[in-house]
């Protein structure tokens, strides 16, 4: 997904594939036979989908109908086949994609870029997962035959109507998969961007994360299409809703992955913003949609899945550990606010957001001292909390709108649109604020290596680092030595000796493929000092050796962390390409908003239930 340097496994695959003529670490391309294998597999899947879909609609193949019938008797009972079958398919696909994503990021952090979309084994679960999401959407579109699946359905042809949630689910999967070719184009124009927050990378994870909203819409349409006597038992509905909301929490949390691993390339204040945004949206929706305790159970589901992925990637596969934000405090904030405000959803969203941004922020701050690789420091206290409040309120309001739509109630369209647009703008403004960084000129770091060990192939060393002027670093968010892409990750928070003077607490790697630098983040300052960088002929980068004593300027990190970036691309081209990705993203977000508004309007709650609060209409 984050396509970067050769991994060990990827390199081995390439050699096995007989592509020995390629240089050791090409910055693009893939072995032809891998492309053929992957194309063959994908082609077979496509053919199966087309044959099953076409056969189902023409009545010649009954496999889909039988599978859907089976699904209505399993965990999807109480919904017709066109909702009961696609939802578990999408759930399993999302789990596969999530595992692949964390595995992939972990591989890229420890091994660097890879040769292309197929060179990294972790890309396969991502591909299968994203294609599975798309497949689930197509199933929901194809399955309804000879019926109109509810009043919110979309007309495909004169005798073919598809549930809006199915169309949205297919759209979210399509958007995510569209990220792959765009990613490739992006890499060819700009060089590989070794960060999660590349525009096209955000498409891949955003499409998957937001598909949960489409699944919620589909579930609502399915349950409204079922007669009253076939409704599922209350506990099953509760569990399903908590799982959906927990899934949304996971989906919105994937944007934090760089922070989870401890190598964020952006300011630390983004992390509280993203945590609060995810918590606000998913947990307010969970509480309002599922009922009392919904927010807590959504976090339990999140913890099982997201914690499980960390355990599998870090423990079983043996890659890097990804920290898991706690979210329990945020859930309690929402539950507490709901004791008073459960019947006033928008107020609940706003109040929950404020609580999440303050009390929730404090809890994550405390938890992060032990749980995060880069714990929060007083440097980000004020701005981080302001960002968290902004994210929490924006997310909480969106979560309230989502839950209201799912319950068949909605504020006046103008008000809903205003709140939705305001929330998007607030989040955009907060993210933009977080992106403003500076590299103060005229600062240097004098590094003295201590305790140098090993020969050239195994060299490690401690270091004493003196910044000039000494007051340049004052109460920082982080001062670390970070080494990555050398078959591992090394993040060492430096020990302060006196003002402007720091030392390492463990030896840093200075050999092989490691890229080792000193990182400084203080307020808006985000800068680095390269210590050791390897020779990289594929991108025309020369080795930067680490002598025993040297003084280097404090510089922007981007050119050190993302050496693959091409520097000769005009700025307008970058802006234009980003605008294309932004438009695709807005299209997806607005489509989901349209879907929620559509079911709110077309599948209204029965008269009288609004006055009885969210629990009373549980049967609708």
């Amino acid at each position, binding site marked *: 997904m984050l396509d970067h340097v050769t991994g060990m496994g990827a390199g081995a695959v390439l050699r096995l594939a007989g592509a020995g003529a390629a240089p050791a670490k090409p*910055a693009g391309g893939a072995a032809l036979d891998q492309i053929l294998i992957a*194309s063959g597999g994908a*082609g077979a899947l496509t053919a199966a989908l087309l044959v099953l879909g076409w056969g189902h609609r023409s009545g010649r193949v009954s496999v889909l109908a039988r599978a859907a019938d089976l699904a209505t008797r399993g965990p999807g009972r109480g919904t017709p086949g066109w909702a009961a079958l696609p939802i578990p398919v999408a759930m399993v696909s999302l789990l596969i994609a999530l595992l692949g994503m964390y595995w992939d990021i972990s591989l890229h952090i420890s091994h660097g870029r890879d040769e292309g979309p197929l060179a990294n084994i972790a890309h396969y679960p991502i*591909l299968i997962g994203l294609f599975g999401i798309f497949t689930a959407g197509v199933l929901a579109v194809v399955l309804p035959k000879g019926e109109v699946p509810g009043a919110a359905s*979309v007309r*495909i042809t*004169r005798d073919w109507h598809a549930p809006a949630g199915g169309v949205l689910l297919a759209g979210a999967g399509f958007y995510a998969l*569209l990220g792959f*070719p765009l990613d*490739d184009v992006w890499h060819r124009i700009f060089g590989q961007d070794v960060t999660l927050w590349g525009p096209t990378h955000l498409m891949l994870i955003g499409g998957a994360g937001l598909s949960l909203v489409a699944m919620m819409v589909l579930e609502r349409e399915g349950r409204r299409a079922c007669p009253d006597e076939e409704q599922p038992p209350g506990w099953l509905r509760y569990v399903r809703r908590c799982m959906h909301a927990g899934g949304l929490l996971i989906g919105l949390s994937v944007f934090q992955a760089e922070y989870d691993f401890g190598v964020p390339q952006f300011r630390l204040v983004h992390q509280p913003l993203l945590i609060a945004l995810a918590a606000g949206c998913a947990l307010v929706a969970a509480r309002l949609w599922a009922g009392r305790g919904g927010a807590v159970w959504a976090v339990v589901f999140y913890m099982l899945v997201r914690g499980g992925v960390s355990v599998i990637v870090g423990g079983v596969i043996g890659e890097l550990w990804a920290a898991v934000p706690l979210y329990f405090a945020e859930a309690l904030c929402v539950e507490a606010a709901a004791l008073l405000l459960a019947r006033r959803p928008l107020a609940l969203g706003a109040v929950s957001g404020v609580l999440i941004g303050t009390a929730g922020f404090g809890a994550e701050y405390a938890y992060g001292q032990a749980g995060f690789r880069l714990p929060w420091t007083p440097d980000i206290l004020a701005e981080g909390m302001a960002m968290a409040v902004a994210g929490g309120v924006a997310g909480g309001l969106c979560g309230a709108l989502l839950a209201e739509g799912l319950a068949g109630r909605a504020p006046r369209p103008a008000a809903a649109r205003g709140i939705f647009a305001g929330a998007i703008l607030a989040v955009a403004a907060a993210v933009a604020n977080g992106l403003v960084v500076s590299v103060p000129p005229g600062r240097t770091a004098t590094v003295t290596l201590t305790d140098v060990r090993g020969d050239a192939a195994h060299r490690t060393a401690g270091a004493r680092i003196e910044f000039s002027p000494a007051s340049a670093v004052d109460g920082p968010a982080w001062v670390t030595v970070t080494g990555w892409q050398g078959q591992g990750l090394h993040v060492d928070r430096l020990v302060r000796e006196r003002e402007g003077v720091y030392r390492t607490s463990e030896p840093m790697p200075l050999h092989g493929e490691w890229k080792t630098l000193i990182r400084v983040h203080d307020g808006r300052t985000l800068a680095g000092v390269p210590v050791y960088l390897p020779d990289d002929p594929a991108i025309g980068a020369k080795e930067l050796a680490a002598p025993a004593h040297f003084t280097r300027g404090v510089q922007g990190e981007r050119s050190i962390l993302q050496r693959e970036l091409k520097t000769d691309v005009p700025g307008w081209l970058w802006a234009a390409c980003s605008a294309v990705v932004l438009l695709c993203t807005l299209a997806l977000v607005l489509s989901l908003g349209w879907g929620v508004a559509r079911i709110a309007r077309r599948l209204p709650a029965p008269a009288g239930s609004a006055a009885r609060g969210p629990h009373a209409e549980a049967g609708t």
Partner: protein
Amino acid sequence: MRVADGVLASHPIITAVPFFVPTFIVVAVIVFVVWRDRRRGDDDPPGGP
């Protein structure tokens, strides 16, 4: 450096083919079905997705 350039040039966007072409085919088939239906039915009131 020259070798690396050769690798880049000889592997165009084709590397990403298995990642998106199947999706595009499925979407194209659905769009075709819709287009055929729309073209056929003059009697139907306009409207759609």
